[in-house]
């Protein structure tokens, strides 16, 4: 089984970069018929990615997300899967190239550095930990998608504002649709993040007997939660609209990237499980 996992680990970035190129080509050149090829390739890639995650889980006897690089692969899968669902709902493939750029980045980092340790600390075995990690990664996926739609919103906003009618203008869906997707992504992500933090606090208290605020990752997670919480309050109470929501969502995602990269790699705390 090991060689299959190693092969799929190399294959996945290749497949995602192929998706990225195909969606990029669709964005620049092709008509609607090319969309079918893109959808087919993305779904096939998702199927293979799911198989990879299942094989790692079987081989190691645990969830395939107990270190940073495994988590990045699961995050790539979750983002791509949520995007595939949204694409089906909205009937628009223009966001694919932007979303898949993140997916590819996460997967290539994962494939380059991942190691699958069979041994897992006993404290990380159990449903509490699994629930916390899955919720956290799903919330990151939803918030990443919200950030990508925010970036698309800003690109289109300034294109229309400056009376330019280039590729961005002709290919992206309306500001209204982008604004809605950005807000919905942030809302779903916030709910999942709330549940992830809550489950994490409860689990760390029960299993580790450590206060969450003594951990750098826990503090950054709280900052992320506050950024998105403020965004949702301002949106609903102060009638904040597209532009500011988009900027806020990007700021929130910058905190997440900081949490994923800098905090995980350079700061210590009980999230470093080694």
């Amino acid at each position, binding site marked *: 089984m090991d060689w299959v996992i190693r092969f799929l680990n190399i294959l996945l970035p290749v497949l995602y970069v192929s998706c990225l190129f195909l969606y990029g080509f669709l964005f620049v050149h092709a008509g609607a018929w090319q969309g079918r090829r893109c959808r087919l390739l993305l779904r096939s890639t998702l199927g293979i990615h799911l198989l990879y995650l299942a094989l790692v889980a079987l081989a190691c006897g645990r969830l395939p997300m107990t270190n940073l690089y495994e988590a990045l692969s699961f995050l790539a899968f979750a983002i791509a899967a949520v995007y595939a669902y949204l694409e089906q709902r909205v009937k628009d493939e223009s966001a694919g190239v932007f979303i898949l750029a993140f997916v590819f980045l996460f997967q290539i980092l994962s494939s380059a550095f991942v190691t699958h340790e069979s041994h897992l600390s006993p404290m990380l075995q159990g449903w509490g930990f699994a629930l916390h990690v899955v919720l956290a990664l799903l919330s990151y996926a939803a918030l990443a998608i919200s950030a990508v739609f925010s970036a698309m919103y800003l690109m289109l906003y300034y294109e229309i*504002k400056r009376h330019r*009618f280039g590729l961005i203008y002709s290919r992206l869906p*309306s500001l209204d649709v982008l604004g809605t997707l950005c807000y919905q992504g942030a809302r779903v992500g916030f709910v999942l993040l709330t549940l992830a933090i809550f489950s994490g606090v409860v689990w760390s208290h029960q299993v580790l007997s450590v206060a969450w605020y003594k951990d750098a990752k826990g503090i950054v997670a709280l900052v992320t939660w506050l950024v998105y919480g403020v965004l949702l309050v301002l949106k609903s109470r102060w009638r904040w*609209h*597209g532009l500011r929501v988009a900027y806020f969502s990007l700021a929130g995602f910058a905190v997440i990237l900081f949490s994923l990269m800098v905090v995980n790699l350079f700061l210590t705390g009980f999230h470093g499980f080694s």
Partner: protein
Amino acid sequence: MFKWVVFGMNHETAPLEVRERLALSADEVRRVLQRAEQTPALDSAAVLSTCNRTEMVAIVSSRGGVPQDLLALLSAVRPEVERIPASSWYLHRAEAAVRHLFRVSAGLDSMLVGEPQILGQVKEAYQLYCEMCQPHPVFNKLFHLAFRCGKRVRTETRLGEGAVSVAYAAVELAMKIVGSLAQKTALLIGAGETGELVARHLIDKQIGRLLLCNRTAERAERLAQRLKGQVLPFEALERALEEADVVLCCAESPTRLLTREQLSKVLPRRSSPALFLIDLGVPRNCEPECGRWENVFLYDLDDLKRLAELNLARRREEIPKAETIVEEMIGEFALWHRSLQAEPTIRQLTQRVEAIRAGEVEKHRKRFEGEHWDDLDALTRGIIGKILHSPLEKLKECDGKTSHGMARLEATRELFGLDEPEHPEQDDSARNAQ
């Protein structure tokens, strides 16, 4: 041999005053088709009549006098046809006629290249033809390929994308900003013609609500009746601005109707995220600074003209791709037409049956002693020969020149699946047998 022709006039060969004299109603088209059925020189004819073209697609026998017979058909319902100068008409024959029909379906021959209505109009022409006449196999194939050609051009190229008139460009921009118009409110300030045209396009796109504001209340009332909108007094302009998503300004006013200060008061009270201001007035109705507010998008006539021209240029860039599709479809039609000759059909049928026979014999050969193999071959060949004798004789009588003969050849091809790829197993068996 069949000869198909396209005869008619369009926006390139005839001016509007000529075209409008020849725009036929559905009933008039039916009368033309009825007469066409009784014209010996014509095997079949269909009529396509729109505001930009009136043309006949016809299959004529070799005895037919083209275009006199076709002109006679049209002049029977529109006598003024005879006074139209000959230079207004065109006649395309054979492959050029097929190319013309396919280009028309694709929107390549339209005044506004890529416009979507023409494909529906070609379909209506074919429906009227089917309603009035016994459908001819060549016509069936020709029109269905024309529909496919139109559809392929629309899905595989961007020929139909982007608004190419100022009014449509305004609506396209509105939809790019506020999305679906169904739940949105448009406000029309003034009673200018372009504004009314844009408002009509917004109504076509199912705008949720249309408000009208004009200094002269009577003009606003008259316009509201035509557009089924709601009139507000001019003094209520600020309240209307709070509710509107799209504002069309087309008043004849020497002073600005919308100012930056006015918007600064209105914007905090608005619940909608974006405000699209379309300034169609000359002189302009909105202060240019209005567009500097966050989530306010201001466009004037020149901006919209630039967008329409840009879209037209983009459509023209797609023409080579669309022409390639047209040529592919012509190739498909030519291939189909060639297959309807008797000789290739007979050859393909005998080859197909022989392949099946050889395959089956090969599969069961081991059940027989080697000394009987020649007898087995002779026996099966004999059975096949007897079965095929009568059908082949009948097919030899078909020359592919009469509609009856073509129908028989087409039925044979369909029954024996001669246009489908052969079963690979059969091919292998046949090869082994040889």
